């Protein structure tokens, strides 16, 4: 989809604070984080979601991108190692370049490691959002390079796992190289007499 709201002019940042059920809301006051976010420079919208990654949460992001003409989106939820791709796709569907999205990790790095100190955890969550908003103000659109994929596979190890992986991929239609260190494939499985639970021969 073409980028509709990605102008170079005025910054319009939206902040979505996720409760993740009680995973975050249990030790972080998400509403106060959202209120704090609204006071940050260039933030024009902020709200709290029960589960931002779920469909209603994603719909809310998309709706608000259009409604508030957001051109930067910050989601304060879990680690970007988990849901950054999810939200990048989400903002892209609403016409925003995925690189204009930024994530604030207030779960793994905050609510879960400061379970018993809501005040400190909330302060840290606010700061984390502030850091992400500061970064978001300087984000710019990026174009990803697309490279071809070589349609051959390499399997390292010719035991029961390697043999089966190689067979499955070869049956799917890919050329497979099966590399085994020993002179024969078979691995440890070949040394077993019978295998449980069916008590049949291993080879």
């Amino acid at each position, binding site marked *: 989809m073409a980028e509709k709201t990605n102008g170079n002019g005025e910054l319009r940042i939206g902040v979505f604070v996720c409760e993740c059920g009680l995973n975050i809301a249990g030790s972080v006051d998400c509403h106060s984080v959202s209120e704090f976010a609204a006071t940050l420079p260039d933030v024009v919208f902020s709200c709290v979601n029960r589960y931002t990654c779920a469909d209603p949460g994603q719909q809310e992001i998309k709706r608000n991108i259009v409604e508030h003409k957001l051109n930067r989106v910050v989601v304060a939820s879990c*680690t*970007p*190692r*988990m849901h950054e791709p999810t939200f990048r796709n989400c903002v892209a569907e609403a016409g925003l370049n995925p690189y204009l999205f930024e994530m604030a*990790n207030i779960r*793994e*790095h*905050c609510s879960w*490691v400061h379970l*018993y*100190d809501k005040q400190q955890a909330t302060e*840290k969550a606010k*700061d984390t959002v*502030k*850091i992400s908003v*500061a970064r978001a*103000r*300087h*984000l710019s659109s*990026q*174009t*990803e*390079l*697309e*490279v*071809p*994929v*070589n349609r*051959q*596979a*390499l*399997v*390292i*190890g*010719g035991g029961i*796992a*390697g043999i*089966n*992986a*190689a*067979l499955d991929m*070869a049956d*799917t239609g890919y*050329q*497979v*190289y099966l*590399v*085994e260190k020993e002179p*024969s*494939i*078979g*691995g440890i*499985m*070949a*040394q077993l*007499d*019978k295998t449980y*639970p*069916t*008590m049949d021969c291993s080879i």
Partner: protein
Amino acid sequence: MMDAGRHPRIKMLTYSEIEEVTGYVGNFKARIRKKAKYVNENECTACGECAKICPVVVPNEFQMGLSTRKAIHIPFPQAVPSAYILDMDNCLGNNPIACGKCDDVCDKKCIDYDMQDEIININVGAVVVATGMDVYDPTALDDYGYTRFENVITSMEFERLICSEGPTQGHFIRPTDHKTPKTIGFIQCVGSRTQDPERGNPYCSNICCMNTVKDSLLLKDHYPDIEVKVFYMDIRAFGKGFEDLFMRSKEAGVMYIRGIPGEIEQDPKSNNLKLMVENTTTRQLEEHDLDMVVLSVGVIPRKDQEVVKKLFSLSSTSDGFLMESHPKLKPVDAPTGGVFFAGCAEFPKDVKDSVTQASAAAARAGTLLSAGKIKIEAITAVVDEEKCKLCGICVRVCPFNAIIFDKATKQPAHVIEASCKGCGTCSAECTFDAITMQHFTDRQMYAQIEAILSDKPMEKIVTFACNWCSYAGADLAGLSRLQFPANARIIRTMCSGRVKDKFVLHAFKLGAPIVLVSGCHFADCHYIDANRWTQKRVWKLWDKLEKMGVRPERLQLEWVSAAEGQKWSKVMKACEELRQQVTEEEVQQTIKTLKQEEEKKSSRAKKQPAPA
């Protein structure tokens, strides 16, 4: 095995090792050394005439050393490829005076004493790592006497002794007198589930309980009168059909005694064994007289695992097995794009689970291969040609040779986008700020540092964490619900190599009491060795800080892997302790010193004439 051997789309390379891998997801290049077998495996019909005449006798590894083989041999009867191999370490050679007998009898002239290793280069899009496991060696457990008593064997040796293709054609005998034992004991959890590092590993090896249940049934099946006793702490029969098999074993008369034996003694005359155990069900100390004992040994990571770890920048979890991308959501994906796990390389598995994971890995690799193309994250470096002063440092530090620069032509440095992996080391090392790391720009980083320190800076620990290891280690600390002080504020970079000295100094200038730079351990760096530059840079910074009268301890450098949630928690606590020792005056002094330094520098720059 046979199916894999004859599949038209599987090219099997046995007796081969991967020496080098370059490239990235979708486009790997691998160099494979196919070692010389000295027998043409395509021509060999496995007639076996060569082995008959071969005079060299050595222990047979496949039979766990319980029988012998010749120097020229087939690994085992059903080997794939079905071909002989000449073990050159033991061969007497082809000098007619010395030997050369196998060559004389080989009708098809398959034997080539001068065969050379072959180097094969391949290009692939996806890689499945199925390097398997090793078996725990119980030599260290001297109280069980594995090395002292011949009638104490391991479960792997048991497999060979009960197998019809084994050294005794499946007649189960004990080593000392070649008689079938009347009483046999199995000891469970050998090398597993122990907190004593000298007695094995803390994890459960997953397969040993059911393997013993199976072995007990095989014995009862072959020799109904044999007395089988299993000494265990828990029988873990959790899988489909497992409990049934366990019950069958009990019904067949196998005795299950809850208690791990303390010691085994041998009667020197009969070679019979006496085993002492505390039966925890009856709370009695018991002695059991047995003809033979099988140590149900656990599974350990492959000893040569470091090789594959290095080839693909993989890490291990605390148990030593290869670490997956996510323990629940991406259990077959390696953290390195385009690499997937199957079987025991990731964790001990039985046959069924290995096959299941193999199919999963094949499907995951298939999703990548079927797409035919892949988008590379737009995190690459760009050189500002006007700022480039042709010093060439970026070329020197780039771990991927992704920067081109020729001093002779005086053209500014240029980044090859497809080769750049985005570690940001070039950008951090460039003295002239001429390299922009896209999506991790200097401007963005400064903005983050400023946001951290704009309010109550004395309470904050400015923390840089690399995406692949330290940041993930911090994530694991969260997943494990480890609790530590809430003072750190994390800035994520792709690699610790991205952390420019100016970022650290900027943080100190804005009043940071402590700055922490954290990255992958050296062997784990996802950008080959970019973190070596991090280390050098931090060393230089320590010198610089010391000269300026700033305590170098205020800049911390830590290597934390993705599996080290515990370590992250410790580092957080240690940094917080350090932070509490930093005084307001100290910070103010640092700010003052850094500002003076800056002024000196800028006045020097003004005095210097502009380059011609």
